[in-house]
């Protein structure tokens, strides 16, 4: 029965078989971190949110185009159930809404921001382990690296974190320490996901070929 259950899970893991799921997540983290760390007097300041919106819209289209040209001809196409796609959107939307709410509550009650960021990172590591690392054994190293990185961020001195956002876009609407924590966390998670996704894509391209090529 366990093997049947494992088969039922396989299509979920297939989405990231080429590492594109991680690459898109990493790109989002790094994009947001870059925008937040822009100097306050930068010309990009005024259009930064439009860039973010553009990035959010462009990434899914880019992924679809790459999958159409690389993944589907090599290992096939999967049409996911509408209910699964809806559930993913709802979970993503809820997470998106909970982060600003959590930050607001934390600022109001003067909680330790770095500790909160650590907890959020550990949740991310757990979600990554459940969704990605269960299918590919070496990805457990990435899950552990995310968890370890989150713990390290929690122990970073406050002035180091504040310095990361000094005179940047985020020091205006948010406190420097909070901004610095977000920038450091997003750079760390973004870099880890990009490296892991890049290795997966390289392995995928190396190990799979379109059927016509295999017959030659």
């Amino acid at each position: 029965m366990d093997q049947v259950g494992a088969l039922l899970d396989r299509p979920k893991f297939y989405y990231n078989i080429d590492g594109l799921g991680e690459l898109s997540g990493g790109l989002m983290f790094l994009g947001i971190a870059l925008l937040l760390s822009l100097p306050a007097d930068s010309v990009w300041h005024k259009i930064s949110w439009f860039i973010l919106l553009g990035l959010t819209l462009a990434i899914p289209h880019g992924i679809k185009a790459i999958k159409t040209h690389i993944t589907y001809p090599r290992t096939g196409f999967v049409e996911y159930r509408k209910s699964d796609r809806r559930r993913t959107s709802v979970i993503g939307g809820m997470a998106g809404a909970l982060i600003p709410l959590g930050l607001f509550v934390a600022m109001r009650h003067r909680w330790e921001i770095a500790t909160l960021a650590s907890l959020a990172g550990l949740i991310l590591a757990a979600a990554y382990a459940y969704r990605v690392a269960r299918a590919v054994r070496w990805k457990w190293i990435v899950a552990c690296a995310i968890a370890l990185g989150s713990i390290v961020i929690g122990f970073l001195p406050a002035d180091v974190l504040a310095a990361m956002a000094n005179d940047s876009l985020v020091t205006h609407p948010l406190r420097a320490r909070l901004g610095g924590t977000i920038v450091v966390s997003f750079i760390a998670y973004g870099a880890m996901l990009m490296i892991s996704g890049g290795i997966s894509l390289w392995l995928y391209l190396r190990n799979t070929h379109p059927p016509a090529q295999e017959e030659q």
Partner: protein
Amino acid sequence: MNPQSRTIAELDRVIHEPGRLMVVALLFAIDGSDFLYLQHETGMNKGTLSSHLSRLEEAGYVEVVKTYRGKVPQTLLRLTGAGRRAFDHYRRKLKEAL
């Protein structure tokens, strides 16, 4: 015949064959897929997979749908309503038997 043996004897033989069980379980979790995906996931060759799919189509568990992805014609394999019910029933019976 004891109840456990009877449950095992009543298992759907179309689904119970390992190759077809793989195909049905994979299709159960999604809306549909192309032939290449099933071939990649099951590790079967074209001939073997085709014969299993024909058997499942005969039983009314799988349907072949011709669609377009953008402008590219595409053949998708889907589990029918009967196929989903049969697989659900099969899992329940297998759990009982085990």
